[in-house]
């Protein structure tokens, strides 16, 4: 049954998955092309010096890309079902409702993580050829909170999209915005290093919030 749910989610979101993959990889690739251009014009030395002396990481343009991809993924996955009131059909499947929803979230989370991992791989593939390990690790580690924010945006938007009442949706939205702010407080590259494991754990726990929306939905709450 879970496989069937994964298949259903795939059918629902496959075009968006392709678009998200292209956008995420495209932005990562474009950022690397810009780095390569600097390299060819001014030499690799210039990159190293700018990184060491000015704390630059050259990939700032990627900062909000995962956030928007995660947010849009949840909208694409859940908003049509909620709008057409077909989400209740999923709950009538011969499987626990919470398990069905968890499977949907696992699908979305896994796809997003795969897309983000490919972007990181694209960056690593180029950066490790021109930069010392300390420097490319510096860039990759600095981007991790942004990708984590993408997963958080997906789970929090799912929570909001699945909520049946508008009053609660607004409240959830305020909470979600404040929670997402935590991922963008960095005063310097690699500022999140020590906090990342805890932040990753809390991010995964945001999936619990969708269970509250599910409960409200099943209770038939309406505005």
């Amino acid at each position, binding site marked *: 049954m879970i496989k069937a749910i994964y298949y259903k989610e795939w059918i629902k979101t496959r075009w968006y998955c392709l678009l998200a993959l292209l956008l995420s990889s495209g932005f990562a690739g474009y950022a690397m092309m810009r780095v390569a251009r600097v390299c060819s014009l001014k030499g*690799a030395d210039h990159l190293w010096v700018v990184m060491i002396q000015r704390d630059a990481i050259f990939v700032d343009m990627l900062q909000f890309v995962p956030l928007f991809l995660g947010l849009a993924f949840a909208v694409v996955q859940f908003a049509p079902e909620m709008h057409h009131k077909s989400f209740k059909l999923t709950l009538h499947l011969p499987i626990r409702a919470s398990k069905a929803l968890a499977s949907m979230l696992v699908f979305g989370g896994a796809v997003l993580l795969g897309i983000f991992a490919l972007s990181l791989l694209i960056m690593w593939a180029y950066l490790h050829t021109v930069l010392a390990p300390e420097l490319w690790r510096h860039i990759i580690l600095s981007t991790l909170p942004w990708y984590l924010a993408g997963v958080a945006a997906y789970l929090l938007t799912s929570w909001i999209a699945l909520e049946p009442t508008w009053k609660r949706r607004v409240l959830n939205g305020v909470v979600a915005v404040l*929670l997402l702010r935590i991922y963008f407080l960095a005063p310097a590259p690699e500022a999140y290093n020590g*906090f990342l494991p805890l932040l990753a754990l809390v991010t995964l726990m945001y999936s619990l919030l969708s269970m509250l929306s599910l409960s409200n939905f099943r209770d038939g709450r309406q505005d």
Partner: protein
Amino acid sequence: MIKVSKIFFACLVAVLLVWQIPSLYNTFVAESVSTPFTLYSSVAGRFATLEHDEDKKMQYRDASGREYTEEQFDSILPTFYYRQLITDGRFPDTICGRAVTPRDIQLSNFNMRISPLDLNKPRLGIQQMLESMSGRVDLELPDDVFRITESGLEFVKMSANTIDEAKSASFTRMMQGKGFRFPAYRLSGNPTDRKEYDEGYVMLDAERKLFHVKQTVGRPYVRAIALPEGMIPEHLFITEFPSRKWLCFISDTQGAFWVVERDSYAVRLTGVPRFNPEMESMLIIGNMFDWTVRINRAEEESYYALSAQDYSLVDSLVYSTPSQTLPGLRFTSTKDKFVKPRFVK
């Protein structure tokens, strides 16, 4: 599952409230305490202050309460306002019984800022070592960087991203020969070409012994610096001031503040009573007669006047700066560049 979800949601809301309510209060309600601009005057023999009164007029005073005009204030701080004194044709021949020229003042004046933000931050682990005896007037940035490993100093050519084995071996051998135990505990340098001269790095080795390491004509210069008995250095701050009189400042594990003289490598204790650079910021405004040392602490701003000759404490002044902020959860801090949850009182 629902119960766990509800508890988790309640925890999240509680965290957000403990974070956001104090943050909003501190932004819109709490007022910061301002203190007057303060410098020690060797001419007046006490601290001199400059602040706006209630009518936004400048008030010039010294610590005894005596008031000055703007011109008189320039004269009691001649090393700070020397350019104004030159413009007015009032620059004195002697200050505190010592014959001086504007050039002497210019060379001996220095400012040094030490902030916890510079210490408590993510570090790259690689840095540049300039050529300190290039024979040219202007310094040039090198084409390599170095890292300190468990077993030595490793230079990496930036353009090829490859290790310069010969140079690495040369520096490692020299450092080990001088008694340096890898890896380094701390190092401090100022690898920029926007300075007058280069002193390379001061380093603490794995046993916290102090070394001066620089590159002269492509070769390593390594000097072990003897530390006073019982002193355990914690943080190093290279100076490279125009006067070339000092090599670096050191803070030790007991909170004492030391000066290393450049030519003799003598390590001298200053009269600063206590300083924790990981939590407190320091500003030193120095001249040929005295140093005014300002230390910003949690609830006070302390000023210490040191003699520029023997670094002894001449005078001190403390302004109380009680915190008006609400305690609460913060993710960032003015003391470090890390993001992590912390409860701030």
